[in-house]
């Protein structure tokens, strides 16, 4: 839970927090699409390089934070690469010819794409991105539920952390069996609490005439055409370089 709070806090305190969402989304999502559609070498490498420069030099995301969040995807990458480096032939498992190269290219592409995701995650709070979904035609009901879900995530998460602390202090995690039971108890106690909290909040808001939409004051400026043009130029340049050098 602490990781999600950490990412959320970093996004809200980011230097680029008040940049227009459209600019950051074009930057992150545009490069993300380039990362998966260009040939990994040198396309994805260029995308990854550009994204890292923007993340660290532009938005000044702290490297340690970035690395902490990146550990999980790297674990997946390591496990997945093993499968690419082996092949199942007539005589069982053997190293696949060209497997190391294939795994290397895939790693390159996945890392480039992950750097785009991390740029978005660490500079733009999830609420900003979700509000942007409304403009893309996602039904209002779904966006509202998504925004409410986001607010509940941290409330329920804090409760879960407190419950787990209490169980640890009472030897609830001392053996594997107890631990499974303790986690089960946390989940079982968390669901009714979450639903109860939701009902109380609903009653409170209904009493204040809540009609169902969450209007929050947002002071982010509109996207500037110059910035958007610069982003697109950069992306076209990277795409052209990636396609030409391949």
């Amino acid at each position, binding site marked *: 839970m602490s990781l999600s709070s950490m990412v959320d806090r970093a996004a809200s305190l980011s230097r680029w927090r008040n940049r227009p969402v459209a600019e950051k989304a074009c930057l992150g999502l545009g490069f*993300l699409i380039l990362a998966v559609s260009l040939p990994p070498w040198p396309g994805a490498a260029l995308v990854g390089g550009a994204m890292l420069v923007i993340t660290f030099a532009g938005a000044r995301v702290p490297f340690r934070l970035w690395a902490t969040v990146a550990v999980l995807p790297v674990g997946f990458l390591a496990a997945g690469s093993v*499968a690419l480096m082996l092949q199942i032939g007539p005589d069982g498992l053997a190293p696949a010819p060209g*497997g190391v190269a294939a795994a290397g290219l895939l790693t390159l592409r996945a890392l480039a794409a992950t750097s785009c995701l991390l740029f978005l995650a660490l500079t733009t709070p999830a609420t900003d991105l979700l509000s942007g979904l409304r403009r893309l035609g996602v039904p209002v009901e*779904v966006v509202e539920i998504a925004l409410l879900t986001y607010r*509940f995530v941290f409330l329920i998460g804090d409760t*879960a952390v407190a419950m*787990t602390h209490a169980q640890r202090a009472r030897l609830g995690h001392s053996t*594997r069996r107890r631990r499974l039971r303790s*986690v089960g108890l946390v989940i079982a*106690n968390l669901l009714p609490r979450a639903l109860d909290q939701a009902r109380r909040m609903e009653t409170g808001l209904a009493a204040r005439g809540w009609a169902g939409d969450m209007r929050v004051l947002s002071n982010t400026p509109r996207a500037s055409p110059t910035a958007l043009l610069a982003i697109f130029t950069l992306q076209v340049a990277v795409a052209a370089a990636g396609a030409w050098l391949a």
Partner: protein
Amino acid sequence: MHIMEGYLPASHCAAWYAASAPFVVAGALRIRKIVRERPEARMILAASGAFAFVLSALKIPSVTGSCSHPTGTGLGAVIFGPSVMAVLGVLVLLFQALLLAHGGLTTLGANTFSMAVVGPWVAYAIWRLGRGLGLSVALSIFLAAALGDLATYVFTSVQLALAYPDPTSGIVGAVAKFGGIFAVTQIPLAIAEGILTVVVIDALAGKTADADKVGVLAGEIR
């Protein structure tokens, strides 16, 4: 484990988005109807989505000593039904990508299909089948949660195999390879999740009779 950002080629990303879209749209229409009829369900749905996210952040111990998190697909499918779970699943996957870098945006379609469509539908089918065959609530829930969890990961292995077939043995060999890494390791975790879900449902609805145990939990959303 969800498929990480950038791991699938662009064509596969688009295909899985297209494959999961009908389920998510159907779920969204259902949620729209539920919210129109009972506006109070909005908060309940949001709290359930957040609950599913928090669930995935709790670690459960497994036999091998490694830890993994419960998927919650079995629990959700049994309580809320699989169509609503498709939308809640997308939201959870989106937050996992944006807040934990777990999964990704390009692979969201593929992860939605395995986690929010295949898992819940398998769990729901097994739950209905188990009840239809006259199995006890506890056993039906155990099987639904364990096999729903396992189905999710087997399907993830299939998705990876389709994208990266084995050079000599093709897609079948690749399913075996990826399955060996991502699905076989999941068997003890699936069993743990099955037991966990029984513990949860029992603690939640302990005092009600077997037959309406699950109905009691669903409340407004059914």
